């Protein structure tokens, strides 16, 4: 369970998040949504321990993440970024192997066990055939799947993903969400996913954390959260629900 206790965060003078108090249950599949710049990414980075809040604290299973070393944290939380940095020449296999770092000692080489885990994670994400490929030889969707494989190789109970599908075409978006759904169901990982597509979120995620101007606007089951009212407030877009799908039209009056 992840607990955020009265978190506030500001970049310089700009207050990004204010008074965030919430919990993420173990095994949940959460969509973190909100307009651009509302603080979604900041929230994720705070949970990942990449930022420390000016106020409040993040707890994982009742333990403050400030007390954990980078190594301990990396055994509990894996983080997939929106834009993976790829200007190096490591093959996909070597990239995924990096995910085993939190379990290795300095000067120690990878064990057969590490290799076995890497192969398993790559097969799961459908990237095993890309094992020799360098980053520039892969498409955006393939690269993102390799990054997810790397996060899986960390064998953490918690997986955070910051807009992993925003640059991908519809088919690949479905692919990745299907994959995350499987991981959530079969391995019981807690997943926090920042995603923009309302219908994708509605289809795959169980719960929703809706952020509006640095504060929590809604938290709860996703089907009850993506209401026309909430969508109008947060995104300024008019929405209609038909047969479980959202039809959207821009609110011309506000723009």
């Amino acid at each position, binding site marked *: 369970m992840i607990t955020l206790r009265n978190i506030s965060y500001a970049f310089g003078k700009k207050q990004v998040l204010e008074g965030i108090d919430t919990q993420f249950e173990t095994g949940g599949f959460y969509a973190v949504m909100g307009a651009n710049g509302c603080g979604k990414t900041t929230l994720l980075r705070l949970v990942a321990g990449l930022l420390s809040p000016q106020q409040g604290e993040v707890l994982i299973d009742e333990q403050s993440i400030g007390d954990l070393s980078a*190594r301990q*944290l990396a055994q509990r*939380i*894996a983080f997939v970024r929106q834009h993976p*940095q790829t200007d*190096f020449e490591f093959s996909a296999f070597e990239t995924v192997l*990096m995910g085993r*770092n939190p379990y290795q000692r300095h000067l120690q080489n990878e064990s057969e066990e590490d290799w076995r885990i890497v192969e398993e994670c790559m097969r799961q994400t459908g990237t095993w055939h890309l094992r*020799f490929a360098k980053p520039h030889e892969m498409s955006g969707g393939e690269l993102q799947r390799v990054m997810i494989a790397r996060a899986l190789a960390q064998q953490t109970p918690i997986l955070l993903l910051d807009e992993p599908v925003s640059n991908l075409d519809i088919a690949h978006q479905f692919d990745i969400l299907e994959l995350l759904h499987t991981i959530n169901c079969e391995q019981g990982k807690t997943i926090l996913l920042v995603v923009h597509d309302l219908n994708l979120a509605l289809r795959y995620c169980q719960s929703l954390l809706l952020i509006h101007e640095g504060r929590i606007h809604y938290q709860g089951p996703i089907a009850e959260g993506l209401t026309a009212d909430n969508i109008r407030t947060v995104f300024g877009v008019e929405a209609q629900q038909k047969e479980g799908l959202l039809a959207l039209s821009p609110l011309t009056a506000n723009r």
Partner: protein
Amino acid sequence: MKKSRPYKKITTGGSPVGPGTGWIALLLLLLAAMAVSAKVGVVHYSWVELWQSSIFWNLRLPRILLAVTVGAALSVCGAAYQAIFRNPLTDPYVLGISSGASLGAAVAILLGLEAWLLGVGACALASGLLTIVVIYRIASIGNRMHTTTLLLTGVCLTFLISALVSFLMVLHQDKMDSIIFWTMGSFASATWTDVALVAPVVLVGTAVVLYHCRDLNLLLAGSEAARSMGVEVERVKKRLLLATTLMVAFCVSATGVIGFVGLVVPHCVRLLLGPDNRRVVPYSIIAGALFLLLSDTLARTVLMPAELPVGSITAIVGAPLFIYLLYKNKKGF
């Protein structure tokens, strides 16, 4: 799990991670090169005479050891900097550490400190360290180091310092020769004192870099990614920078500024063996030592009894080799 799966091929292109037989072979080659380098020179000796001569013990041997040590150190530092700053152009020279040290040496020469045993070296060391402190101060906003700011600061300081050194040279033309020595680098005045000062620092510094080889790999994937995969990024970066800066400052204090080695050697190793720093660093140690030893041997033998600046040899030999490897690699895609 079947053991026949080609895991090793995937990760390392066929050879085991870390120093293997190739590394040992390269080490033997280095030892052979050291022996040959000891034999050649203005005065000819047989092997037996060489062993008994004071030229070998007091001139050639310390010079060879110093070239090997400095070559290894600069290459290791270059490899480390390139990973830490995720920038292929980084080396001790670009970061301004080398030129910072040369300014200290120039000032010491002008103040007439040459007569003292360690006068010039100590000043070079102090100003090298001072430069890196200034660079860190400017570049570390908040508590985090920003790579771009750090590099730009280094480049700017290099320009500023080179200008100051030229200025000093014009003002004091009588001392120009000794200052030029510092800006171009040379092993001609190598002594046992130099070796005794530089070698321990290089040994310890290299050990620190070797210890963090895998962290260097992860840093290449980005600071944030490294952090979320369990690297204490800021601490590791600071420790590595301290170790490498000390190595460079001690090297420059003994030999002056030698560019090109730190940039080219790690790149050549990477082009041949792939990006894994667990191989790049150990191979860079030997390759750098070998490269600088050969360059210095050429520098003192090509136009005997006159000496060439070793920096010009490293560039003349290294640049075409580097360009060839780049070209060959490009064609492979």
